[in-house]
């Protein structure tokens, strides 16, 4: 939706992503990723699939494979971390947060962001870097 695709394509993409989430719900492992991360990866893959008509090669699964029963302690740690990350992201100065958002959902390279926002490329790169440094600091 945020990637500048036409409305009908974006709708199709979203619907397909929702259908995939529905069908793959049983594969979700809360000790390995938060719900947001999982939704993000599925939506992203669908976007690549529908808009770019290309495959997305994924890294090999780690040898120990999915565990039968997720460890509750891992689940809680992961939930806490993703809440902290969301809070840290929300607390970013608006200019920095906006550029991080564009880097993910604008479907744009840094120089394309420069054209759209009218900001110099160097400013964009340093703002994104500042944002990421701030997030890293918050997560320590």
């Amino acid at each position, binding site marked *: 939706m945020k990637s500048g695709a036409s409305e009908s394509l974006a*709708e199709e993409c979203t619907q397909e992503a929702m259908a995939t989430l529905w069908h793959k719900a049983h594969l979700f492992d809360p000790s390995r*990723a938060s719900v947001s*991360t999982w939704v993000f990866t599925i939506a992203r*893959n669908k976007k690549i699939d529908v808009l770019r008509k290309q495959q997305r*090669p994924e890294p090999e699964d780690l040898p120990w494979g999915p565990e039968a029963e997720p460890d509750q302690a891992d689940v809680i740690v992961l939930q806490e971390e993703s809440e902290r990350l*969301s809070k840290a992201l929300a607390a970013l100065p608006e200019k920095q947060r906006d550029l991080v958002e564009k880097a993910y959902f604008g479907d744009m*390279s840094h*120089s394309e962001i420069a054209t759209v926002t009218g900001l110099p490329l160097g400013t964009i790169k340093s703002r994104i870097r500042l944002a990421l440094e701030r997030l890293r600091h918050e997560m320590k």
Partner: protein
Amino acid sequence: MIKHHLPDEVLMAYSAGNLPEAFNVVVASHVSMSDDSRVRLETYDALGGAVLDTVDAVEMGEGSLEATLAMIDRTAVDAITTEPRTLKPGVFPAPLQSYVGGDLEDVKWRSVGMGVKQAILKTNKSATVRLIYIPSGVAMPDHSHGGMEMTLVLKGAFEDEVDYFARGDVEIADQDVHHTPVAVGSEDCICLSATDARLKFRSLLPRLAQPFLQI
């Protein structure tokens, strides 16, 4: 021991889905071999999820829910079972094996002279990815690339003006880097190399200088 991992900017672009398919093959192969890059990639996926949570909701069209529900009913459940991404262990990591249709012995090489061979993998046209076979002691033939070049070592090692690269290491060079990789060591060297002559990709990763985030 992998020394040369992928820079954060590349991992972020892979996570966001902004790289051409050819480069994704190299990134997925490298991440399969590098725990360091895998951890950082997972961080970027988590950041993507967090960003997704913060963006404003968008109004969907009329009938969208019905269409989605219909889609859920239509999709046969057996069609979406995930194929295992861990194939038989070999020289190539799983994502590469699926592009080659097998492991090293299944590659259809074409000679390019001096004992050097290459095999171009089938991806969409926005960039090119190829396997390159360089006999030990031989230099990579002169190749020009207008944009970005990302090379992952799969077997053996090579050395250039920048450093020494062995299995799992990845080197990124833009057109300003004039390097002459030479295969070194007892084994012949096999690399996976993605190139993009288009300016678009080059400017996406302008100078892989600043290390980004390592939360």
